[in-house]
């Protein structure tokens, strides 16, 4: 069964990509699973300078999901290029650098530095856990357009724009990204959320709100992928709460060319394998010849 998918001329051997921020730079998970299994790996969000991230607590569990507020802790682009990328490059999988600027110029600088060294870059216009940049830009279609356009100009590799779900109409962001020349969009990033410890009456996340991920957000994510699929022609990378191959298939039917898995990695590091196998079996049973036939193939 052919699981190969193509995004802007880049061939992924299968549609399963590790989601940014849940997989570090692959090193830790490489001890548990074969990274070659992945169609691609999106790195932990990278910034120009090293960041120590947000204060504790950064994590809490809620019904069917987790809220995180890591706040883009990362070693900075230089350390990424020197210390992390060579390791990742050893594997037969596409490397996607998730980049995070706090201004248009920073996004451009990051793109200039990493785009020649990776297969794709993912412009994170949706981080809910930083006070500038991220979602602050990403909620505004004009900003999405502007940043995408500039990044495209300087990027040596295809550009994915990662969209935030915390908006009235995500398709406006998708259309803005497409118009600006994005090669693909990825969605959704986490949904802004909050939980309170009723004993201490303190928020369970130090920054008060954080980003909700995991199964709880899946039906919202599937809806958004479907909405975007109707509005843009560029490939969509879908994610949000995928726990197994059935969830992944839902996203593909809704219009996703590829999918990313995040939170599930913490629970079941074998998820990539199970999802890949599950999709393959499904395609066979349902009589499809290739996964491409399934993308957006919804019966309305």
């Amino acid at each position, binding site marked *: 069964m052919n699981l190969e998918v193509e995004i802007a001329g880049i061939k992924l051997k299968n549609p399963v990509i590790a989601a940014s921020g849940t997989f570090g730079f692959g090193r*830790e998970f490489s001890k548990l699973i074969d990274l070659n299994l992945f169609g691609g790996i999106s790195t*932990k969000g990278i910034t120009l300078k090293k960041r120590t991230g947000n204060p504790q607590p*950064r994590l809490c569990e809620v019904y069917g999901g987790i809220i*995180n507020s*890591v706040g883009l*802790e990362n070693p900075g682009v230089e350390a990424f290029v020197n210390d992390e990328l060579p390791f990742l490059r050893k594997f037969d999988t596409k490397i996607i650098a998730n980049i995070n600027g706090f201004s248009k110029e920073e996004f451009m600088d990051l793109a200039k530095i990493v785009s020649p060294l990776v297969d794709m870059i993912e412009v994170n216009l949706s981080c809910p856990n930083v006070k500038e940049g991220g979602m602050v830009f990403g909620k505004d279609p004009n900003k999405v357009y502007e940043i995408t356009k500039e990044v495209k100009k300087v990027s040596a590799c295809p550009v994915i724009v990662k969209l935030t779900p915390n908006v009235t109409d995500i398709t406006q962001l998708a259309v803005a990204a497409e118009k600006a020349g994005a090669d693909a969009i990825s969605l959704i990033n986490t949904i802004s959320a909050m939980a309170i410890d009723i004993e201490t009456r303190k928020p369970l996340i130090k920054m008060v709100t954080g980003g909700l991920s995991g199964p709880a957000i899946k039906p919202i994510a599937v809806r958004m992928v479907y909405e975007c699929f109707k509005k843009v022609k560029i490939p969509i990378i879908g994610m949000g709460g995928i726990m197994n191959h059935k969830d992944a298939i839902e996203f593909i039917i809704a219009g996703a060319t590829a999918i990313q898995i995040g939170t599930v990695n*913490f629970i*079941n590091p074998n998820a990539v394998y199970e999802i890949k196998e599950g999709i393959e079996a499904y395609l066979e049973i349902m009589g499809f010849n290739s996964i491409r036939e399934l993308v957006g193939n919804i019966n309305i």
Partner: protein
Amino acid sequence: MKLLDVEIEENVKIANDIFLLSFESEYLAENFKPGNFVNILIDKESIYPLLRRPLSISFVEGKRVYIGYKVVGKGTKLLSQKSKGETIDVLGPLGNSFLTDISDENVAIIGGGVGIFPLVGLCKELKNKGNRVDIFLGFRDSNSMFLVEKFKDICDNTLISTDDGSCGYKGNVVDIFKNNFSKEKYKVVFCCGPKPMLKAIKNLKLPVKCYASLEEKMACGIGACLCCSIKGKDDNVYHVCSDGPVFDIMEVEIE
């Protein structure tokens, strides 16, 4: 580290809300170092609880691995309802370990509440290496005491305190330790317990090395998600799951 499906051998209540679980795993038993923990997926189908639960390996005996835990929330409650023969998914061994390549030294160890569990393996190892080990154990009351006989078997001195004085000294375990401590007496100190206890120990500014095992909420347990950060000196960030859980107590901020 490995992902292992293990079959529960025993899962028994040993005190108020406190359980001792064991299973056989040659791999874990062989690779275990005192201080290591595992990240347990209690129910593969569950979305609430969703994450794995980090629990220290308390000690090993042959191929048998022992884990002690307190029922505090949904995950540990579910775990306490599992019985012999049921399978759980265990990721481990994880984390660093207490520094135990010392021999023929005097060592003090302080444990409070469930922080006592990982100290069993530590005491065993230190004794195996020919050290003299004094352990200070703090419990809430006599009903919440556990593994005391085990420590008495292993250690040279076992000193107990309870908050209400229902057994041993009345009061805080750090106070008992402080009264017994001198620079000459102990070469190194290890500790594990609730944050207030660790903070109090840190505030003693001991003139000897002191290592503490810490806790932070964890998602991956292997250093990938960066959820379990802890501030070190000079604006450094460590991760409790992969750089820890054991740290030089003076090197990290305990809030």
